[in-house]
């Protein structure tokens, strides 16, 4: 079936079997490989994107269910002039990624959390940030989220 949706602000039309997960359409049809395959069962969050602003695990939502909706991926976070999103900048400042494979999903989850809460508490971070990172970058993810929201920026700067 042909499906029309918006990806990173641009209308796109794709042809895919209706049960194809959004993840594989993004990666294989639209060449947006920043969104990662990790588990296929919505358990790890490596495939997290925003669908109409909601954090969504794209491996477990069918393309038919996102028809007409607006999808934002990691590639769509930066502004038109190429400036990185403040969360991406905080990720660099805190040197968060190790292998980096889960980090697109982590960043998308963090952006959604910040959009929803403004300045999340540790408890809100614990509740919302359920993506798996096997390298164990959680302390730096937490630090970067706080830094991006103006909290504890000094802790990030002063870390060595």
């Amino acid at each position: 079936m042909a499906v029309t949706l918006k990806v990173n602000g641009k209308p796109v039309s794709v042809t895919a079997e209706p049960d194809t997960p959004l993840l594989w359409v993004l990666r294989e049809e639209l060449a947006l490989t920043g969104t990662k395959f990790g588990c296929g069962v919505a358990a790890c969050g490596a495939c997290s994107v925003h669908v109409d602003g909601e954090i969504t695990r794209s491996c477990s939502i069918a393309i038919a269910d996102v028809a007409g909706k607006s999808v934002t991926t990691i590639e769509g976070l930066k502004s038109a002039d190429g400036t990185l999103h403040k969360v991406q900048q905080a990720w660099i400042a805190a040197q968060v990624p190790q292998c980096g494979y889960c980090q697109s999903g982590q960043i998308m989850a963090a952006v959604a959390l910040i959009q929803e809460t403004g300045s999340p508490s540790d408890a809100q971070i614990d509740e919302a940030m359920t993506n798996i990172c096997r390298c164990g970058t959680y302390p730096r993810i937490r630090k970067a989220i706080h830094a991006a929201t103006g909290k504890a920026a000094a802790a990030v700067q002063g870390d060595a």
Partner: protein
Amino acid sequence: MADNPNPNIEEAAETPPKKKGFKRRAFLIGGVAVVGAGLFGISLADSNAAKKAVTLTTGKGEHNFATWLKIGEDDSVTIYSPHTDIGQGSNTGLAQMLAEELDAAWDKVKLVSAPAESAYANTGLGRGFLGEMTGQPGIINGIPQSFLSFIARSMNLQITGGSSALRYTGQVTFQMVGAATRLALIEVAAKRLSVPASELTTAESRVTHAKSGKSLRYGELAAEAATLSLDNEPALKDSKNYRLMRQSIQRLDIPSKVDGTAQYGMDFSVPNMRVATIMAAPVRGGKLTSVDTTPATAVKGVEKVIKLDNAVAVVAKGYWAALSGLRSLSPQFSDGGNAGFSTASIFKAYDDRIAKGEPDGEAGEGDVDAAIGAKPVEAKYEVPYLHHAMMEPFALTAHHKDGKLNIWGGMQDPLASKMKAAEVSGLDADAVTFHPMLIGGSFGRRLPMYMEIVEQVTQLAMQLPYPVKLIWSREEEVAQGAYRPQSAARLRGAIGKDGKIAAYLNDYAQTESAESETTFIYDLPVVARRNYDYPSNQITGAWRSVNSTQQGFYNESFIDELAHEAKVDPVEFRRRHLKPGSRHLAVLNEVATKSGWGSPLPAGVGRGVAIVESFKTIVAHVIEASVNADGTPKVHKVTTVVDAGSIVNPDAAMAQIEGGTIMGLSSAIGEAITLDKGVVQQSNFGDYPILKMADAPLVQDIHFLNSGANMGGIGEPGVPPAAPALANALFAATGKRIRSLPILMQAKA
């Protein structure tokens, strides 16, 4: 009966791999026969390898130095790394080391993967190995014997493992290459400026003559400098003059990992490419006996079902079609005689072997049987198979066309991967190219000892007219792992009248000896380790810090038990058994101070300590933990002290210790691979739980003691003390000793 249900397994392990179409090369390091080779292996101007390295990498206006370095006339500095940066930051560290000695301008430095060619086999590691052959064993301290054995067998050295990148490649090769190249650049500058070399200084990729105020760019000196033969033993900088090393320079790979542009093996794409996914025999060792391919070919997008010896693969236009096709099949597999293996049968076999008392190997000192006495303190510990669970499942793309085979993706040894593909395809090694890409985690899983994915994708590519990307589903990844061994140990200790340990005996059973990754740090009169070997049908391998995880858990738990028995504080008890003035004692004392050991804690919270040396680095954790209402453990704080000798990039080293600690806690709390009827019972993150943000410690307070000892590893040593420190903390909190991991499974039982 605990006898091995499949007696063929031990025999099979001894059978050398089949070789076809690939001639074993002579023992070459850096492509040059060892005898007579200079430090860089490659310095002989007429060596074919040097010529090949130059051909592979050097374009117009670019000049190669000692294989690993290229300087452009535009001042660009390109460093070729034989290591795979899996996120541990080692490539940035290697670049810091070379650029430091070269006095290169950091913003002109870039580091790329060395081509997977013999010309770029890792001379630094090779030299480490050579150290043993030439009677200078010091150089190989801390590289596990399992790696050395592998190295000795194949010599296709581009391995990343054993926490070796900076210790060996960095110190043995890259600093030397930087220093020697700097001297060559100075020599050319001295000639051009007609001044003595001693009046010249270097900084920021320039050679400067202060007296005359003249200076020359490296780029304008490079062409002539590249024609000089390099000094084999250049003097290195005094560390007090470092400008790049010991600095927390931002990692080179991070920007592309936050904007989605980083390209991992999973992300590779080429026109006309198809995608395949695969299912191997659920009972490892089994074969594919039959499969009706009709249901898969009825799935839209599926193009082909390919039967392999022990697996079935579905090739389709995309992953979803391939997976849907595979799931529609009901393939039949034999069990290879392995259906008798279960978690319980393996533990039973371990118990029986230990009880029988005929060890396969022994280490230690003193007459332990006499000293242990009739009534030793005794405890039995058990740990399960562990899965690596790297976030990027296996994915390799291969294309066979016009007699050439190209493979793209990430493995921990690109050169060995190439050789394996040559062997499987029957092609000459020169017809096979492996293109290394970024790796989404590995922790030992992508080492060349178990490269089924390379074999599989090669077999698929050899019978397909188009490129094919083979992706393992997460389910395949979990069920077909190369696990940390399931292991059991019986520890016995005797406490003398002086309250000190008089004898200590560690009888452990698993696939094979753990001796090469076991450093027993305590200074005891009588101590012994005895291994009882029992292979199952599972592949066991290197899992971050290798055998140090289970051995660390056994020894640091049992020392705690002995302290309890002797009624001595656990830190004080350890102190009494460490050599005065030792690095271990310094680390222990520091972690006690930094953690506030002995200070009051809230009710229900306990404090536990553990100290383990692995890969020549000593790490001690003090963990504060309690038990949640639902019985699960809660880690509040981890205080860590590390002595890795010296550190190249402090912030990157910190990240490794943070992550290693969390991986150690994750495995201790929730992870286990279990077997029933020879089949792995776990399938995805739902039943193989990885620690998440909410359960990670809120506070990790990490300190480095730079003792100045030889550089130790940093990627692995944070892991082993985490499990015993947590178990000891929970004992302090509850009085209940944890002797079986993971903690959650024990809580359920």
